[in-house]
């Protein structure tokens, strides 16, 4: 029987026709978890981490799932701004230096990003939402994410750049050309079709799968202050510094994972590991005639329970557009108004409760670097596959 592999987010099938691509994805995710385990072990000691690789653990523990929910609109923009200011700010691209050039990314940092299509009058006609991590797309283009460098024993996947182009043409614009997506001959996550002209996948520096896995791993470490176990989500993220405390997502994810770890369980993320759109709540949304809107939400990628791409667009037969819809009497003037009604989710798993409680450790001193900047700088993360494949069983069993 073949060894189990990490599945692609949303059980997407783009890797299926590419030689060794699913194995390469498994190796990538395996390494992310290995790194997360190592980060935790630095805190609690070798062999004591409560985060584990739930795919390759032997024997497989019986797992219970815990769904974690947060709002899709950036809380960091709402704090300190008026509502309208926050909606405007959500559409203003960030600029930063990366590899000697200036790139742009969206300020949408809750693992949900979007792009609005407007007509010539400025009225919104559609909003595309994505929560696909950049690692998936760079892997699809070249075999492995930019942030990892396969060692000699890694599965020899090369990706399929043409597949990337076809997906852009299907979901962003038929006008996309291969060269539009490249920078120095490689797939460029910051290409115009993914930033200014559309949203194929996540771009905000904090929005990555690696960040998600590291957050879960760091949050699996129990913390104490003055000899008292910390249980408060705000206090935990301040103590462990495992994310951005002003976001909705990071304190929520971290607090929930830590809550599972406090039961003395092994903890991990449910397969397929990913960040997902949970639901859109259109309660109180009305057509121009005041009647309730229909279901204009189309899931484009992922599975019904693991949605990674969706579009909100009124069918032409209705005779009006998204911008004509009112939410409690307010017209949809910004795509962020739709995002505010979206709940995001990921699913944690826990097993062998009561058997793995590591002693709590003191708070992190100094400022820990966030995960994401490693991706921005392009600094490669060494992958030692032979080590990881041997090690993962040692760690999780």
């Amino acid at each position, binding site marked *: 029987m073949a060894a189990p592999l990490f599945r692609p987010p949303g059980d997407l099938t783009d890797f299926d026709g590419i030689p060794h691509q699913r194995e390469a994805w498994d190796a990538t995710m395996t390494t992310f978890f290995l790194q997360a385990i190592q980060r935790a072990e630095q805190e609690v000691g070798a062999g004591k981490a409560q985060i584990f690789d739930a795919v390759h653990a032997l024997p497989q523990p019986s797992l219970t799932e815990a769904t974690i929910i947060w709002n899709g609109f950036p809380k960091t923009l709402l704090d300190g701004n008026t509502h309208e200011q926050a909606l405007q700010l959500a559409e203003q691209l960030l600029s930063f230096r990366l590899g000697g050039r200036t790139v742009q990314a969206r300020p949408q940092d809750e693992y949900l990003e979007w792009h609005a299509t407007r007509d010539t009058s400025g009225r919104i006609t559609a909003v595309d939402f994505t929560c696909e991590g950049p690692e998936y797309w760079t892997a699809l283009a070249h075999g492995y994410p930019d942030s990892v460098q396969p060692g000699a024993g890694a599965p020899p996947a090369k990706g399929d750049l043409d597949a990337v182009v076809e997906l852009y043409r299907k979901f962003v614009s038929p006008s996309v050309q291969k060269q539009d997506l490249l920078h120095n001959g490689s797939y460029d996550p910051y290409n115009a079709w993914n930033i200014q002209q559309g949203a194929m996948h996540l771009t905000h520096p904090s929005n990555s799968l690696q960040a998600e896995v590291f957050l879960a791993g760091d949050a699996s470490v129990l913390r104490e202050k003055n000899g008292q176990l910390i249980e408060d989500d705000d206090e935990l993220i301040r103590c462990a510094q495992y994310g951005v405390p002003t976001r909705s997502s990071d304190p929520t994810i971290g607090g929930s994972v830590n809550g599972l770890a406090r039961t003395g369980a092994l903890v991990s993320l449910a397969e397929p590991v990913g960040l997902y759109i949970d639901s859109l709540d259109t309660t109180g949304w009305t057509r121009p005639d005041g009647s309730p809107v229909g279901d204009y939400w189309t899931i484009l990628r992922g599975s019904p329970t693991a949605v990674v791409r969706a579009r909100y667009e009124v069918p032409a037969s209705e005779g009006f557009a998204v911008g004509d819809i009112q939410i409690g*009497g307010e017209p949809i003037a910004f795509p962020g108004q739709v995002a505010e009604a979206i709940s995001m989710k990921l699913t944690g798993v826990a097993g062998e409760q009561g058997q793995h409680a590591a002693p709590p450790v003191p708070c992190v001193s100094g400022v820990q670097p966030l995960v994401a900047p490693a991706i921005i700088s392009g600094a490669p993360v060494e992958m030692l596959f032979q080590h990881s494949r041997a090690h993962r069983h040692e760690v999780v069993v």
Partner: protein
Amino acid sequence: MTGAAGGALEPVLAAGDIQGDSLSGFRKDHQHYEFLKVGDVATAKRSLARLAPRLSPLADVHMFNRLFRHMRTRRGEIPGTLSSTWINVAFTSSGLAALTSQAEVAQFDDEAFKLGLAARAGKLGDPVDPQAEGHPARWVVGGPQTPVDAVVIVGSDSADNLATTVTDVVSLLTGTDGGFTTVWSEPCDVRADLPGHEHFGFRDGISQPGIRGRLSQDADSYLTPRYLEPADPRAARFSRPGQPLVWPGEFVLGLPRQQVPPADDLEPAPAVPPQPAWAADGSFLVIRRLRQDVAAFTGFIEQTAAQLSEQPGLEGLSPQRLAALIVGRWPSGAPLTRAPDADDPDLGADDFAANDFGYVSPWGQSGTSGPPELVTTRPLPHGVAPHDVHPRPVADAGGLLCPHGAHVRKINPRDQGTDLGGPRNTLRRRILRRGMPFGPQHATAPDASRGLMFACYQASIQDQFEFLSTNWVNRFSAPRADPGGADLLIAESAATARRTLILVDKSGKQHEVATLATWVTPTGGGYFFAPAISAVRDVLTAETPPS
């Protein structure tokens, strides 16, 4: 400079100018809501000018409440021996526009207030069918056929005094020289048989935030009395056991607000000057007239309990316990995490103990292992024991004792994180509830209309009342998923009509409680703004609108 228990010195409130119902609450046995429409504007301004000196400021209401509390502590129940009668007024956006201008109203940073409750009803989940009783088209007050510009709230300890004052005020405002017309009058009284309980039989209003702020330059002249020994680690954040302190700008415009976590909320976030400027020291008021169908609620409870009690894991589930699981408290007010199996009237009667619990940490704050020590220099409220000897709370993050969908947990997740992050974010969503029952009790007049005049004050209708209603009460997976659940007591779902609560038995197995029936129906209300008394006197009654 710091306060007595650490943290920043709290601001001195404009106690002579802020209307008293917002920050202190009238706390009367008898209350009257007179909903009004502006007729001739000039006449209305003149009658309002005559009303302005009679409006009850925070200072008066607070001092009386303190006196009442002291006397009650010393003498026990004192019905009829101490009485005051208060008057407050608030205006809808249309009312303010009539008395000032549209341009003034446009400056308010609250779209919900500007659009009004009827326009927002669908967002709150109210019925979308115009024929449905809960649709604004059929509201008795505040709907498109029954628009409202203002509400006058009169409260009194004495029914006779209330009647006299209401007659006087209504005559002043709606008489020949009044300029207003009455749209709807709603008398409210506490239940004579069960004071403090709403019509379904549950004690209401137990959990309110403590408000930071002082009434004078004296360092300890706190609006909200502090009952915790300063040495207790909770003393800086709680005014009484289980009652977190919140900076007053979350309820009144222009005052210091809560910090955004992770910033330490012992220090306030700076006050934001309100727009328009005369809105300072005012507060947004939401009123929802909610009709309660007691027979439908009790019928559902009895029928559903009988069905559920046959399921493995829920054997013996009584109707009383099912109702408590839906509410999150027993009828006495005893919380489920301290009284999981049966009501505990002694616990429910102790205002401090009944509110002292958390969901993640038993006592609501990491690092605490018991109830806080109370000061011995201040008399405790009636019914409060100096030492909490009631059953200790049990942490319940998974919702085994108190379901995630239970009403009290939906609107106040306490120390549990939410879809917005850690629990300190929740303090920025709290409201000051001032609801009162209307209509006779069910036992004496089963066919009469009854319900709750839900009322709450806040600094932002969008971010507080509406957020709680739309994002937490109505949504299945928020504030907490796993397993989540709708607030079966008051949630509305215009889209699906079906509401589902999840119960978790002791083995961890989940049981679904779903219904299409409703027992709480909105029948009116409005979004109001209660200005400072000086703004009523100097701005709203001015012959020319402010420039």
